[in-house]
């Protein structure tokens, strides 16, 4: 299936970088985090205790500070390393309503039992 967007944590971004394209057909990923900085055309999300990710926004991305967002985007180079070029975002409201640990376990499960979720 062409439309797969693996769920990841910041530490996994390098595996989906276009330069690693041989290993993965896709460099489109899905990540979850809380919006902690907005700077016009870029933003930062904090992914639980797993660090921050810089997002390159689209003109029509409407992120709000302090909200939990699920981001679908392509792994891209930003100033200090890797970031995500946003394709779409989903607002999930108050970060307190979501247990980030569960998400970490989901990411873990999707990579461990890959055949259930993603093509090789």
């Amino acid at each position, binding site marked *: 299936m062409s439309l797969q967007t693996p*769920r990841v944590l910041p530490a996994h971004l390098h595996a989906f970088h276009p330069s690693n394209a041989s290993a993965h057909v896709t460099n489109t990923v899905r990540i979850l985090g809380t919006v902690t900085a907005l700077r016009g055309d870029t933003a930062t999300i904090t992914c639980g205790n797993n660090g921050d990710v810089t997002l390159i926004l689209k003109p029509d991305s409407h992120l709000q500070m302090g909200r939990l967002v*699920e981001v679908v985007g392509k792994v891209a180079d930003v100033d200090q390393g890797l970031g995500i070029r946003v394709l779409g975002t989903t607002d999930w409201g108050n970060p307190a*309503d*979501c247990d980030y640990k569960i998400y970490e376990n989901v990411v873990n*499960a999707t990579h461990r*039992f890959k055949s259930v*979720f993603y093509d090789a």
Partner: protein
Amino acid sequence: MDSGYGYGSSYGGGGGGFMPGETSSPSGRRSDGNNTTLRPITIKQALDATQQHPEADFHIDGADVGNIYFVGQVRNISTQSTNVTYRIDDGTGEIEVKQWIDSATADTMDTNDPKKSQVVNNGYAKVFGKIKMFGNKRFVGSHCVRPVSNLNEVHCHFLEATAVHLFFTKGPVGGAGSAGGAGAGAGAGGADATMGGVDDYSARGLPAMSPVAKRVYHLLKTEPQSNEGLHAQLIAAKLSLPMPDVARAGDELLTSGVIFSTVDEQTWAILEY
């Protein structure tokens, strides 16, 4: 008629009448109504599901699937006169979902209730239904599509789908071969407690076998029985599996020499050694 047939012939008509019905009836004993299980899956699993012949039930991880449910993001909604078609994407794939509009309830509060039609584009939804084919296209015929508003439910669903996948591929928690994966998710402590009697499979180095064969072996191992063992039809009934699957599993176990046939070819007992 479907459901009556399988039982009637398995008990009343004897093995001879049962087997041909099982394999030649095009709509099969297993279609609608008989398999009332509800299984959590990912969309990739729905797309990868295999079908023995048209109209047969789909198989995922070697197990029949009846009803399924999954969680995903709604990419498109198109309302037609007889149905609403959704395109759902859960990150593992994309599939079309058709929900038929029931004309009997369409006029009443159900579909016109603004509170109910909260499934929106790019929002998340939980879909309950059955995998169907139309021509070469696979879709899900759904009787319930409802919005999901808590992200934990989405994540929980993926973990559930994984747990069920592991159940079918590695056997029940604490059962055969659970040492590898299932223990990790379920917590090793819990698995150990129930493992005692059962896990001596892997210790004795059982050969690799299909999930169905594992279940048959497990039943033979645990079910109270005389030294004649169990008849294949009894096994089929106990595991609610179709006879051909049990027969195949039996062949597999016979070939690998872990069971042997006793009073006749269809009655098996564990080969202790």
